[in-house]
């Protein structure tokens, strides 16, 4: 039978961002898949070489829209490593709080996002509304809802506003009640269940072959590989949390792990509220002078943290001037989103292609940056 070429994206409700996959299908089975990046290419890495160390802060959150804070964190952490600056204790805790709030936001959105490719939009609407409550808190802390620009080299940009920890605590209470409803509506739903269960498999050898990290790796290999545990940054070594794992990675397992991670984030946030120092500075200078002339000592560093999709890192090279010499972004979903699609989207049904993207954790802006 003749193959038909179909486009998934760049404009497609089932596609994550303006990314495109050309699918050659036979009937409704994908026979060949060709990812076509470039529609979302904004040249972040090059732009960063032409911006001040501080000025880049306005740029980098845009590499990942839903979880922008990871960019700020890896960037700030890398600069601090190069400049050998130790940031104030309280800043570490605030950073951890911001990162976990961001993880909550993106996980809730991801969980609700299952509703898109499966046709149960109620779930998506819930998630968007729930996420907005987290964004409300972000707005109070940082002054913006989506692109926070709050984690800066040397600490965080401002002190926490009064009473924010209480508000966060209340929100966590609410989430603890609401999130289980997603499970009732979504994960237990007979149709969604059927679509996810034993479908879109991720075998262990593919994890090692392609280099998948994050939920994909943990769901397939039973390994508790989470940078927050194996290479703790901020103050993750001072809080207790579990890393959910599995040894059978179908779509349902991966969504399930995401669901469990939400509760681990809530657990971490509760400890942050309790243990965060009440007083203290939140920022130190990384360099002398005005921000127009901050210099970072020459050198290179790989700074990585655990994003919601896996290991997220920046390789930063400084030549000691007021702008970076080179920054390369290691997007967490790069392996599955570029290599994985080409090789393993094959034999998937057309209607499962979007679910494949979703549950594999493909974030196109960090691939096509």
């Amino acid at each position: 039978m003749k193959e038909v070429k179909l486009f998934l994206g760049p404009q497609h409700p089932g596609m994550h961002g303006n990314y495109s996959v050309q699918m050659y299908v036979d009937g409704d089975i994908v026979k060949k898949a060709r990812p076509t990046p470039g529609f979302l290419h904004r040249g972040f890495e090059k732009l960063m070489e032409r911006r001040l160390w501080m000025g880049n802060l306005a740029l980098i959150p845009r590499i990942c829209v839903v979880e922008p804070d990871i960019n700020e964190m890896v960037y700030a952490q890398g600069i601090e490593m190069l400049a050998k600056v130790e940031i104030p204790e309280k800043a570490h805790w605030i950073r951890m709080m911001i990162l976990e709030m961001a993880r909550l936001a993106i996980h809730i959105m991801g969980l609700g996002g299952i509703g898109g490719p499966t046709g149960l939009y109620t779930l998506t609407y819930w998630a968007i509304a729930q996420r907005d409550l987290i964004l409300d808190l972000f707005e109070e802390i940082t002054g913006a809802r989506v692109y926070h620009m709050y984690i800066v080299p040397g600490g965080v940009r401002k002190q926490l506003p009064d009473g924010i920890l209480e508000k966060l605590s209340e929100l966590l209470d609410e989430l603890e009640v609401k999130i289980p409803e997603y499970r009732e509506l979504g994960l237990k739903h007979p149709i969604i269940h059927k679509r996810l269960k034993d479908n879109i498999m991720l075998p262990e050898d593919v994890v090692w072959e392609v280099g998948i990290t994050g939920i994909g790796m943990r769901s397939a290999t039973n390994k508790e590989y989470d940078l927050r545990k194996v290479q703790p940054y901020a103050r993750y070594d001072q809080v207790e949390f579990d890393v959910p794992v599995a040894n059978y990675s179908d779509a349902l397992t991966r969504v399930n792990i995401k669901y469990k991670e939400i509760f681990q984030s809530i657990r971490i946030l509760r400890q942050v509220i309790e243990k965060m120092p009440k007083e203290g500075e939140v920022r130190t200078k990384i360099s002398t002078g005005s921000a127009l002339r901050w210099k970072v000592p020459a050198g290179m560093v790989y700074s990585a943290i655990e994003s919601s999709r896996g290991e997220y890192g920046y390789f930063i090279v400084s030549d000691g001037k007021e702008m970076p010499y080179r920054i390369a972004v290691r997007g967490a979903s790069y392996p599955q989103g570029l290599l994985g699609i080409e090789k393993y989207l094959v034999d998937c049904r057309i209607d499962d292609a979007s679910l494949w993207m979703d549950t594999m954790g493909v974030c196109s802006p960090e691939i096509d940056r």
Partner: protein
Amino acid sequence: MNERKSFFAPVKAWKYLLKKPVTIKKEDVFDNPREASDQYRGFHQNDWDKCIGCGTCASICPTNAISMVEIASLKIEDGKKNERPALDYGRCSFCALCVDICVSDSLKMTKEYVHLSKDIDSFYFIPDINGIHNTQEKQGYVRDETSELLDLERVKMAHEDVSRKNSFIEIVKGYSMEMALAESARCVECGICTATCPAHMNIPEYIRSIYENDLKGAVTHLYKTNPLSNVCGRICTHLCEGACSLAVRGEAISIRWLKRYIVDNTPIEDYEEAVLSFVTEPVNGKVGIVGSGPSGLSAAYYLRTLGYEVDVYEKRAIPGGVISYGGPEYRLPEASVQKDIGMIKKTGVNFITNTKVGTDITLEQLKEKYDAVFLGIGFSLSRPLNIPGSDHKNVEYAIPLLAETRDYLRGSSKMPDVHEKVVVIGGGNVAFDVARTLLRLQIEKYGKVNVAMASLENRDILPADLEELEEGEEEGIIGSFGYGPEEIVVENNKIVGLKVNKVISIFDEDKRFNPKYDKTDSYVIEATQVYISTGQMPEYDMITDDMKEKMEIVRGKIITGEYGQVENLPWLFAGGDIVRGPDIINGVANGHDSAYGIDLYLQSKNK
């Protein structure tokens, strides 16, 4: 670990059918928008009264959304530009770095976040205090200590401790490379200093060169406008620092000490190459310069770089005028002065020393000999003080003492005759120079200090720099500030002291100099020698009467055209103290301007 499916589980979601939706209604978005958080980064507002137009917001803006727009209705003042930031909201990313770096604390953000318009131009907007929709009260994101992006504290300059008074050692130690790099990194390159500096030095450019550790480039920038950078790096009046935009909220950049860092630390070969790089091919034209002070040297250098043949006449043995014979060694070491003069000599300027114009050669003769003449004779006389007893032989004046001391330290003259107990009249920087010079000579001669000062101005309005007052008192000067001299008490033909009265006011209602004293509060400061340092004045003995008739002299100063040209005497140019009053940087600026004026004049003459 996976979920089991359940047919009934999803049905639980139906309960939300009966609940109120969480979404905001469409009408509310426009008519009753939700109020943003207290530090929301919305549209900008800018307090024009505070804004100085420095453009630092535009410099930091990562998206180039801010451009500086000239506002014709605003006045240009020292420390202020007539520009205000304009925002292009098509580019703005609302990062608020502009707010965090604002030097004047004028730029802030509001809670406003809705702007709908069919007029595309309304997205390009020059914010004022009212913000985009007249919502002044809805203030959002503001800068605070934590989000500060400027470095408001200067790198401290090291000074010699009080044992400095035992010699003429230079007091200010100078910046190390590390300190200079740190200090230069504070600059925001607004250029307000350049506008204020009389010589319009390229200050941001040379500070950037320091920051980039390109000292040769820095010297090049210095010599574009100032060939006396060694001198000005030490004793300039640094008006630039008063205008520095960082001084609005913090401490100004140490522009003077950074200049000194450049001249002290550039390798001499690089330095020379940079200075001589300006000298062009010789052109037809000879210029005579009267006086080798700052203005004369500056005019000589720039004329020489333009290719003219330049002769400089100096009445004393060493060129330099006030820089060789005025400033005390502990502020302005001989080596620095000689470096500046040496560089100017290297460009090919010819110095004719020990030749006083007016006696050894007349101005008329110079007129015949040269195509143009520049007059930079400075204020070379001390202003006399007429009080009873001031005609006594032990009453001395500031300028001769300072000159004699410089010669003494060079080894070309004997030590000035300093008594064991002296009093200095005056409260300016020169008076302190005199007092502190006397004090050092006393230590050398007698091993102890007894220097008193008396000035009309009290401590709060003392014309001298605060630094001079603090350091002088630390060295042992006893000041009677706010006490005016009434008479020099002479007994048996010997001075025994200076009688002073408390000053009530210095100027009368018409703002004329007319000091009033409280005669009940008066005492005698014991001294056997009195030094008067109450101002300087010019000596115009070389100018002939018919020349004087043609030119306009107002209160001792010659009135000139834009480029130093004396009206009615087109061949004569003047600059420095005799045009602008005593200040070295003014002299340098005048010299440079006159060089330009002379060039224009000679070009028009040769046509």
